């Protein structure tokens, strides 16, 4: 029994139960027909039996089991209650007590073997006349019952949780009063007062801590159930799963423990059912046959972190997207644009389940959304990360307690010269930001401060270490008039709301305090900017800001262009075209260029003096690496003047692909806009996709792949692990789409053979040996399926895997109609997924046959 906590709880509970049992037995002797009473006695034995079994106390379990048998006979009416039976049962109670005492003293059951008692109980349950042992006359039973004293059972009492809640509230009040007294005594002279208030301070803090502790429970209380759960899931699914628990003694508030019980169970069940693969699959993937689910709980920064991880198959984001499209949660065109993280977020949408079949364990599509809702309700967050093929980790961040939280006090307006009547708009006002949501504080001073927050259209942004951080002014969010007081300094609180970060500009930053959260009255409940209110040390009321609410509100204000607004995006079903966020910039003769912001890794400024020349290329030392810089204008129009590279500082848009990075030098960043764009006019110029109207002006869309491709001489390349000579046939009608795919494939190190029709593709295949064929479903000259059929007729092409390229995830629904036709289905534009599957297939092929002739053919 490693876990002393559990044993201790078991002892307290069992002693309580036994005491009740004795009373009930005595009562039962008087009213033997009271079935309810009998049922209660039966239940109590049953509970004890169950717990003993769980903890591995075999003797206890045996005795309890036999006693339970006797009682069940009584309950079913096959025996009548006699005082002889009662004595026998009470005797069993005594034996149980003796064992419990022995466990308490030495951690083990008493040495006595209760075989005799068990035998007699068994006989009694079979209906034989019961024989009392001499040692168990009723008088003695009572005497021994009274002897039970001392030890754990007496050092602990059960307290009503409501009483603890009330104590907690009172302590909250006391903390506030303490804060006020402290502030008051700081202004007064007098050693006696200050000494007393110091003492009050200490005692209050200790009291607060003590009362908080009374409500703390180890998380193990919830975890106890998991081994059983995992075992059941494993059996039901025919898998082998080991469960690892770490940090079961991590304590948190009882109310929070209650709240996380269900979400936790759900996640673990999901891990077992969806996460861990079946044994055959695992062995096939080179993993140990036994899957592993690990739970880890620990304290970090005033929060409890619970990580639930499995070493299963991970989340197949493609499947998730396809499923989401199938369920009508998102549209195919939205799905195409989703990144890895955003796709994972789909799992949290209501009505989502990736399990292919609904099992009795899970898969009914009620799940992760409920998990998230429940966790967020108690101020926690859920984060899901997954590596396809390697496993999934869910990370829960939970506050320790809900009643008293640490918060940062910030101010608006001038708080030094307090307006005495406190009229609206005059004087300063305090607000509290919950520490949980605060990522960091940025303080900008002097001249630089004024220019550091750039406004592009309605969106204010700040470059935080190169990342664009959307910024909102608290004053504006709250609709307050007036301007910031002498703003030679700017304070930005960087806040975390769900997956996005934003900066909140406040006018003053005070200190961090423990604050007591009080609810707002009914009239103010509708304001989602506030999470509640608290009373400050000076007795004034301060509003607690609700970071999520503010994020939503500033989303309205600034047009919310952060990366993971998938959900709200998806709910805007009525918007005809989904908008995308574009970064607009100027480079040389190109006045207005655009690139999707989602592709941009960072925006950087480098002093010209830092730009070096290496092997005739511009480079800059950047984060311990050498970042190649490419003047964009010269790629788009060779020979044009390099205006971007001679500015000081130079402006660079950094793109990254895995470990590789490249910086495109541009003249000026213009704007960030949300717009629904379709390329209106295809451009013939290399490096441009075409022109479109973005933000009401004609804008050239950068063909990022092409640009990077032509700059690939300088692309900071670390050799990609590509099977040697892997050749991909790209059969696709659209030149535009082919161009993009070709670039991505070549960048990833593949040789590419292109074909624009089915006939052309077949001719090419006859000439060149390819490892993988990628064909569009709408391939000119018969379509993808017909092309596949023709291919399959040729025995020399039999082993070549064919991937289908669908315009939207909806097309893949045909998969069911023609099973096994294609190796895999890809959605046009999802480059990463395509590269992954090609890579996988090509390497399998390569291991089977000799490397093919390296050939590149253009279609």
């Amino acid at each position, binding site marked *: 029994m490693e876990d002393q906590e559990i044993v201790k709880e078991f002892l307290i509970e069992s002693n309580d139960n036994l005491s009740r049992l004795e009373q009930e037995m005595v009562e039962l002797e008087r009213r033997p027909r009271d079935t309810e009473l009998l049922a209660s006695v039966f239940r109590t034995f049953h509970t004890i039996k169950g717990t003993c079994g769980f903890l591995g106390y075999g003797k206890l379990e045996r005795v309890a089991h036999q006693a339970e048998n006797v009682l069940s006979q009584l309950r079913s009416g096959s025996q009548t209650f006699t005082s002889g039976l009662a004595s026998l049962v009470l005797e069993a109670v005594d034996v149980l007590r003796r064992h419990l005492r022995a466990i308490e003293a030495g951690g083990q059951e008493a040495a006595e073997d209760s075989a005799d008692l068990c035998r007699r109980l068994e006989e009694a349950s079979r209906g034989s006349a019961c024989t009392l042992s001499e040692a168990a006359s009723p008088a003695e039973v009572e005497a021994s019952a009274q002897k039970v004293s001392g030890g754990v059972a007496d050092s602990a009492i059960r307290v009503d949780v409501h009483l603890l809640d009330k104590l907690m509230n009172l302590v909250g009040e006391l903390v506030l009063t303490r804060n006020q007294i402290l502030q008051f005594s700081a202004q007064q002279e007098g050693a006696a007062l200050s000494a007393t208030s110091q003492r009050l301070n200490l005692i209050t803090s200790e009291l607060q801590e003590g009362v908080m502790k009374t409500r703390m429970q180890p998380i193990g209380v919830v975890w106890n159930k998991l081994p059983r759960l995992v075992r059941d899931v494993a059996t039901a699914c025919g898998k082998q799963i080991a469960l690892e628990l770490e940090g079961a003694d991590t304590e948190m508030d009882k109310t929070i423990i209650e709240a996380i019980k269900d979400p936790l169970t759900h996640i673990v069940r999901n891990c077992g059912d969806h996460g861990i693969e079946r044994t055959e699959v695992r062995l096939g993937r080179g993993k140990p046959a036994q899957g592993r689910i690990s739970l880890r709980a620990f304290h970090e920064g005033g929060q409890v972190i619970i990580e639930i991880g499995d070493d299963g198959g991970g989340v197949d984001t493609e499947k998730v997207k396809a499923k989401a499209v199938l369920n009508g949660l998102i549209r195919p065109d939205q799905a195409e644009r989703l990144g890895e993280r955003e796709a994972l977020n789909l799992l949290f949408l209501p009505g989502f389940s990736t399990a292919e079949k609904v099992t009795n364990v899970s898969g009914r599509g009620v799940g992760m959304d409920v998990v998230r809702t429940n966790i967020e309700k108690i101020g926690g967050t859920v984060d899901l990360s997954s590596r396809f093929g390697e496993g999934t980790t869910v990370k829960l961040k939970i506050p320790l307690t809900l009643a008293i939280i640490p918060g940062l006090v910030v101010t608006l307006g001038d708080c030094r010269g307090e307006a005495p009547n406190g009229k609206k708009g005059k004087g300063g006002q305090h607000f509290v930001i919950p520490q949980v949501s605060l990522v960091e504080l940025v303080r900008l001073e002097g001249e630089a401060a004024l220019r550091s927050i750039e406004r592009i259209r309605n969106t204010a942004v700040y470059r935080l270490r190169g990342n664009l951080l959307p910024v909102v002014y608290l004053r504006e969010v709250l609709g307050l008039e007036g301007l910031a007081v002498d703003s030679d300094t700017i304070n930005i609180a960087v806040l975390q709301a769900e997956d996005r970060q934003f900066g909140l500009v406040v006018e003053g930053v005070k200190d961090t305090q423990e604050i007591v959260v009080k609810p707002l009255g009914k*009239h103010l409940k509708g304001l989602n900017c506030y999470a509640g209110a608290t009373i400050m040390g000076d007795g004034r009321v301060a509003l607690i800001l609700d970071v999520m609410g503010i994020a939503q509100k500033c989303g309205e204000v600034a047009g919310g262009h952060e990366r993971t607004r998938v959900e709200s995006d998806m709910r805007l079903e009525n918007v005809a075209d989904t908008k995308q966020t574009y970064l607009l910039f100027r480079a040389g003769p190109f006045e207005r260029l655009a690139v999707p912001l989602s592709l941009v890794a960072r925006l950087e400024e480098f002093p010209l003096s830092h730009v070096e020349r290496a092997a005739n290329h511009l480079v800059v030392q950047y984060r311990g690496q050498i970042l190649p810089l490419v003047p964009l204008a010269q790629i788009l129009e060779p020979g044009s003047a390099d205006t971007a590279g001679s500015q000081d500082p130079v402006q660079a848009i950094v793109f990254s692909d895995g470990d590789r990075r490249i910086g495109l030098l541009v003249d000026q960043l213009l704007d960030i806009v949300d717009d629904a764009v379709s390329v209106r006019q295809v451009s013939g110029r290399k490096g441009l996709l075409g022109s479109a109207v973005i933000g009401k002006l004609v804008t050239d869309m950068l063909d990022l792949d092409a640009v990077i491709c032509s700059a690939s001489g300088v692309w900071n390349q670390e050799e990609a692990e590509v099977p040697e000579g892997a050749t991909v046939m790209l059969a696709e009608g659209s030149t535009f789409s082919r161009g993009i795919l070709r670039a991505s494939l070549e960048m990833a190190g593949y040789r590419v053979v292109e074909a624009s029709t089915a006939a052309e593709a077949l001719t090419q295949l006859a000439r060149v040996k390819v490892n993988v064929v990628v064909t569009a479903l709408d391939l000119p000259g018969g379509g993808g399926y017909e092309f596949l059929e023709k291919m399959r007729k040729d025995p020399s092409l039999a082993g070549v895997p064919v991937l289908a390229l669908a315009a939207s995830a909806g097309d893949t629904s045909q998969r069911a109609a023609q099973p096994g036709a294609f190796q895999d289905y890809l959605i046009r534009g999802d480059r990463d997924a395509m590269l992954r599957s090609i890579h996988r297939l090509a390497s399998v092929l390569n291991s089977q046959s000799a490397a093919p002739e390296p050939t590149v053919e253009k279609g």
Partner: protein
Amino acid sequence: MLTTGTISSLESSSRSLSGQYSTFDVAGFYFGIDVLQVQEVLRYQRMTPVPLAPAVIEGLINLRGQIVTAMDMRQRLGLPPRADGETAMNVVVRTEEGVVSLLVDEIGDVVEAESSSFERPPENLDPAIRNLVRGIHKLKDRLLLVLDTDQTLKLDTGNGQSLN
């Protein structure tokens, strides 16, 4: 919900035909609230304004550790604001939905009124006021308007008072 509301207001209106009223002045109007509903009466309290709240919500006050919403009666009744320098008094009332403080100009005495002096509010009374008044007691020297606290605290209905 609606039904119980109606019943309770009927009950309280019959209760308020006679009894003791805690009285106060708002812009020259003489109001009364059933004394049993009034928790306490306070001088001006320091107020924390709540940005974005309905205009009638003047702010939050700290009532011995309890945070109480303060509603300005002048705003609520659609009357002009108090002149600069005049501070409001608090009439703290207990309601089913918690404690709310009504901001008024002056606090009056507790007066006793007979049911015989009670009358429904006249039809031609300014609707902004009429909607929030149960009736009028004709006292010897002046008229006492009996405030309907339920209606007063209900911001989503009533007399078209702008909430923003």
